[in-house]
């Protein structure tokens, strides 16, 4: 198990390397002088052209590309992300402020989606071809067909504007900062984010369960005299979860994509909105570093789910 873990971590490194190179290339697209986003803007304003040239020399900007990359990446590893070209703020500080909000949104979305998706899929497969099953599958297709932003707009129109139950957007009211104050701001975004995920997860769980329930070892388990519920859970769901886990890994990026859209609709101050704002004013350094942080996050969480799958499946663990 530990060996498998290290192997997966090792495989992660070249992926991160590729991403960092892509980010580096993306940054070189920034028009104008790269020094603009490498040092704080107020400091830059004070510098004379001669001082700028020495600084450029010392930052290695006149070196060849590979050397520049190495210098840049070592800076990034130390947390030196440079500065926004628009506001001049430190990108690291910007990300540190926005990341927790996105993590909170994604985490609750994931938790709710998993609970509902797995349960509904399980019920559907147990009651295969019943009315419950048909309703679930039809709702599942509808859930994957309605665009998130439209769902979000409808929710705001109904629950916030018409009924006035929940706030239209934002993360927290001024002066109220505890988690419980934030819950009412989380309900709608989390729900809209989770719907598509629930639908997908439900469909895959159902399919995987139906597949497993046809296996010989299910019949063998029944022949042991254990109860139907235990056959379905301990042998059925336990095995069905393995492919579902793999789907889960593949869908994490989709969840993040959804978060970008949801954050914009609900005016939620997370990474997604930051990226979009940065794109609309061509603040490429902010775009690139936010992307890098998100990609790293996704890779790490994929690794965690992979580990979970390995825990569930001895065949992965031992190979």
């Amino acid at each position, binding site marked *: 198990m530990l060996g498998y873990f290290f192997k997966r971590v090792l495989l992660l490194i070249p992926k991160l390397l590729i991403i960092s190179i892509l980010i580096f290339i993306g940054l070189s697209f920034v028009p104008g002088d790269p020094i603009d986003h490498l040092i704080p803007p107020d400091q830059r304003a004070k510098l004379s052209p001669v001082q700028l040239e020495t600084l450029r020399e010392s930052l290695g900007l006149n070196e060849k590309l590979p050397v520049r990359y190495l210098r840049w990446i070592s800076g990034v590893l130390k947390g030196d992300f440079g500065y926004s070209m628009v506001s001049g703020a430190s990108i690291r500080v910007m990300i540190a402020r926005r990341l927790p909000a996105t993590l909170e949104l994604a985490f609750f979305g994931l938790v709710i989606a998993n609970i509902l998706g797995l349960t509904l899929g399980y019920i559907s497969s147990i009651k295969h071809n019943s009315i419950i099953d048909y309703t679930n599958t039809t709702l599942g297709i509808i859930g994957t067909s309605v665009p998130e932003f439209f769902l979000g707009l409808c929710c705001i129109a109904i629950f916030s504007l018409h009924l006035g139950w929940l706030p239209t957007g934002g993360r927290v009211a001024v002066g109220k900062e505890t988690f419980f104050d934030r819950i009412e701001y989380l309900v709608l975004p989390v729900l809209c984010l989770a719907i598509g995920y629930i639908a997908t997860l439900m469909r895959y769980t159902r399919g995987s369960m139906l597949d497993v329930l046809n296996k010989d070892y299910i019949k063998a388990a029944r022949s*042991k005299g*254990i*109860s*139907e519920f235990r056959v379905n859970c301990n042998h059925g769901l336990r095995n069905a979860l393995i492919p579902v886990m793999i789907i889960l890994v593949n869908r994490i990026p989709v969840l993040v994509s959804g978060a970008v859209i949801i954050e914009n609709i609900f005016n939620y101050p997370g990474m997604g909105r930051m990226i979009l704002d940065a794109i609309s004013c061509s603040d490429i350094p902010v775009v690139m570093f936010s992307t890098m942080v998100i990609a790293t996050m996704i890779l790490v969480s994929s690794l965690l789910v992979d580990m979970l799958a390995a825990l569930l499946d001895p065949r992965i663990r031992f190979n």
Partner: protein
Amino acid sequence: MNKDIVLSIDGLKTQFKVGKRIVHAVNDVSLSVKRGKTLGIVGESGCGKSVTAHSVVQLLPKTGNICKGTIKYSPEVGKEYVLSDYKRDSKEIRSIRGKHISMIFQDPLSSLDPVYTIGKQIEEILFEHEKISKNEARKRIIDLLAKLGIPKPEERYNHYPHQFSGGMKQRVMIAIAMVCNPKLLIADEPTTALDVTIQAQILSLMRDIQKDYGTSIILITHNMGIVAEACDEVAVMYMGRIVEYGPLEKVFNNPLHPYTSALLRSVPVLGIDKNTELRSIRGNTPDGSDVFQGCEFSPRCDQICQHCKDGHPPVRVVEEGHEVRCWLYEGSGGSDHK
């Protein structure tokens, strides 16, 4: 019920719903298994032999159900359970499954749950039916594994199915089936998926078990050779009906039904004259949903007579304990079964 009999099936009829059609998989099957003896059920695939066995413990898919007939099980003289009265997945039938009547399946590769150690999978059945401590269970399982010829049982106890070979997996399946000392073991094509040498090992293992524990066995197979080797009695099935039924020697030495003789002729025997034709049965097994006017075997039969299209032949007892279902034996001096 006769005190020598552990299981008796009388007039069993099992049907499946396939879409809107109803398929009669098993039709009017009656048979009995004697204590400590082996009954072979033989026939081509799709003849209803597995369905008959699965009906015994109500282990049918959701689309199938028993619609007629009784299945009686007697673990010991004087005790009797009517299995066909129990509801599917009811507590009563579950307490029979695994504890009194256990099963071995055709494909050991897919019959073991890949995510649990074999120790856990054997334990599961023990904990379900007996009050036993974890240590005791472990000891008993390791003893059983050793007895069944699995080397290093203490180590193997914690191994996963994918770490076993096919023959070893079937031994594990037998361990699961035997751990509660059942009175009846249903082996559904236990050797079909195995290599020939392993087949012989598994068959002799099953014989040893029968000797040691006095377990009765229903052996389902399509292989006449295995029947000859392992069974005391044999029931030949065709299209959901038993066409011939009797003690092994009688059926093999004096096959009455044309289908049985055809099956026996199609088995190659060592030392057979190379010029003797190895005969196959012409035609294919018909679809189970087709409704037949006469005897189901008549389209493929060599000895067809004028009665064959009239209706289903009744069961005839031709000699002591040897029954056949064929028009050829009408009026041949035997007596009516019913």
